[in-house]
């Protein structure tokens, strides 16, 4: 009976560890897909095998293992490399134009269509 309990405990620990590792890998992939590889042409850290990307992947994995939050990892990366490292930069006075351009284009297009329709009537 004791041996059965021990085997069960070991199996439980192994499965628990594997699931935890899988979760960390999943989160590492999720975070590194939103980080830009600064030495590559339009690739994310996740997609690149460059030294820089490998360093970042290792860092993210280690921080997640230590229990760091996603927000903490992103803010650390931004503090070291700026907003440019994020594929999805936050709204700030520097990026306001970037966020507004699509809406301006839509507005401009809507005005043109409205004028055309009005003239045709």
């Amino acid at each position: 009976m004791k041996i059965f309990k021990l085997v069960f405990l070991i199996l439980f620990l192994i499965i628990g560890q594997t699931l935890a590792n899988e979760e960390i890998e999943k989160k590492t992939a999720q975070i590194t897909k939103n980080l830009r590889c600064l030495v590559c042409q339009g690739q994310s850290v996740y997609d690149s095998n460059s030294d820089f990307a490998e360093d970042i992947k290792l860092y993210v994995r280690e921080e997640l293992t230590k229990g760091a939050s996603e927000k903490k990892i992103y803010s650390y990366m931004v503090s070291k490399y700026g907003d440019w490292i994020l594929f999805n930069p936050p709204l700030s006075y520097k990026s306001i134009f970037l966020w507004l351009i699509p809406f301006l284009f839509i507005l401009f297009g809507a005005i043109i269509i409205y004028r055309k329709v009005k003239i045709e009537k």
Partner: protein
Amino acid sequence: MQLKKEHKVIIVSCIFISLFFIFYFSLGKSNQHNPTVMIGKKLPNISGNSLENDKKINLNSKLKNEFFLINIFASWCAPCMEEHKHLMDLKSFKIKIVGINYKDSEQNAKQFLRKLNDPYFEVIKDYSGKLSIELGAYGVPETYIIDKNHNIISKHIGPINEKFVKEIRELKK
């Protein structure tokens, strides 16, 4: 209010001319992004093991109130060999340079320094790349200028040159 045909042509031409110049100048620019967020900031805590004797070193306490350079290098990096003579020049002008040996092997790094001479005041091993991330670096070689108050004044990406050596000599004065 209707726009006259000539006005429309002028507006469209202006847009196209502006776009042409934007693309013309943007294509000529380097597409390598140079992160400058670390410039002006305090030097982060840089500690690691010495290449010479494997002892733990804390740069912030070791070089208190001193002007120095941090140079990220590796024995496998060809541009590092190219800039080596300039690092030797800086050493001859009594400028302290701390080497961060990035993703290298101890044996190769020591051989590299024996062969080309050692310009470094101290070399710290960074075989996991964490120290380089801490500095906001993304490749080799990179050189950081640190003032007496341990602020990062500037950084240079790629091999340093004669112009850089002159600038450093001026700053040291």
